[in-house]
């Protein structure tokens, strides 16, 4: 079997976090273990409003397949989702709805603004479009593009995976996170 064929058949397992390993044991910090678990099981809430939503369909399709990153299970209710993917234009009329969905998500939660419209209002600098969703909710990763190619959306998801992987367990109780919430009046 040729070299790369062997490469392909060996299933790629998520590489273990740093830690001390010896004769038959492996010790790592608890935080890294939890981070590894969170990183590879992000359940996305596809808040797909317009054209980026169709590009997300292509990302979920068999060709680009978001399931390779552990985000197979889409949850349309904020209760069981960790990742809010806002894809497409968000109008001002949609602002309160987006905010309500964000607030009702369980901690820890992350937000990706996919596409130029979600990140900054994109080409629609008009009276009815909200110029970027970070006016209503805090955003972790912005994916440029109009619409971004599925590879870009997957790149955004991998950035979120890094964030989730190395996030300290005490971040959500830290003062800096509280100020962020205060800034968005999320009690």
């Amino acid at each position, binding site marked *: 079997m040729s070299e790369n064929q062997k490469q392909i058949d060996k299933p790629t397992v998520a590489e273990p976090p740093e830690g001390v390993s010896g004769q038959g044991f492996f010790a790592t910090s608890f935080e890294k273990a939890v981070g590894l678990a969170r990183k590879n099981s992000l359940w996305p809430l596809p808040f797909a409003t317009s054209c980026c939503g169709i590009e997300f369909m292509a990302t979920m399709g068999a060709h680009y397949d978001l399931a390779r990153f552990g985000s197979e299970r889409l949850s349309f209710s904020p209760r069981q989702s960790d990742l809010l993917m806002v894809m497409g234009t968000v109008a001002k009329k949609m602002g309160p709805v987006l905010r309500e969905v964000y607030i009702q998500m369980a901690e820890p939660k992350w937000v990706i603004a996919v596409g130029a419209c979600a990140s900054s*209002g994109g080409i629609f600098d008009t009276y009815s479009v909200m110029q970027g969703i970070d006016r209503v909710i805090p955003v972790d990763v912005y994916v440029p593009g109009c619409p971004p190619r599925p590879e870009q959306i997957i790149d955004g998801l991998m950035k979120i995976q890094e964030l989730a992987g190395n996030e300290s367990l005490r971040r959500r109780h830290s003062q800096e996170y509280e100020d962020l919430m205060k800034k968005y009046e999320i009690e």
Partner: protein
Amino acid sequence: MFPIIPERNQLVVSKLIDQFGDAIESHELLKDMLCITVSKEVIHEVLLFLRDEKEMQFNFLTTLCGMHYPEKEQLGVVYHLHSFVNNHRIRIKTATDIKNPVFATATTIWPAANWMERETYDFYGILFEGHPNLVRILNMDDMTDFPMRKEFPLEDQTREDKDDSMFGR
């Protein structure tokens, strides 16, 4: 190009004129479609006549949209009708003064006009009396002014990074 059938256009115009007289202000062939300007008071009867008359049978309301003529201080409505039977398309235009922009509704003639009129009201502030529920359809409900009028600015006013100095305005 749509098929231009001169005798059909003549028929429509002549029938309308002897039915409504000088309420039909003008009619001309613009590019490939007969365009008739009708005064505001008879618009409802003209549309009903065009739909029910045997030779006309304009049974399909293709679209309805508002217009704003700032220099003439007028608000207008443009109806596009299409007769499937004899494949004939015409355009009906009416206009009114900007102070009391009230028209008779076309919803009773074609139910398709319901949302089109709500959108025209939402954009231009044109009131359609007799409309079942004339409420904003696309914009925020608590929006007071009418965005599609020429003097309303396009850009979002809450943006502070796009000041005019950058655009040389």
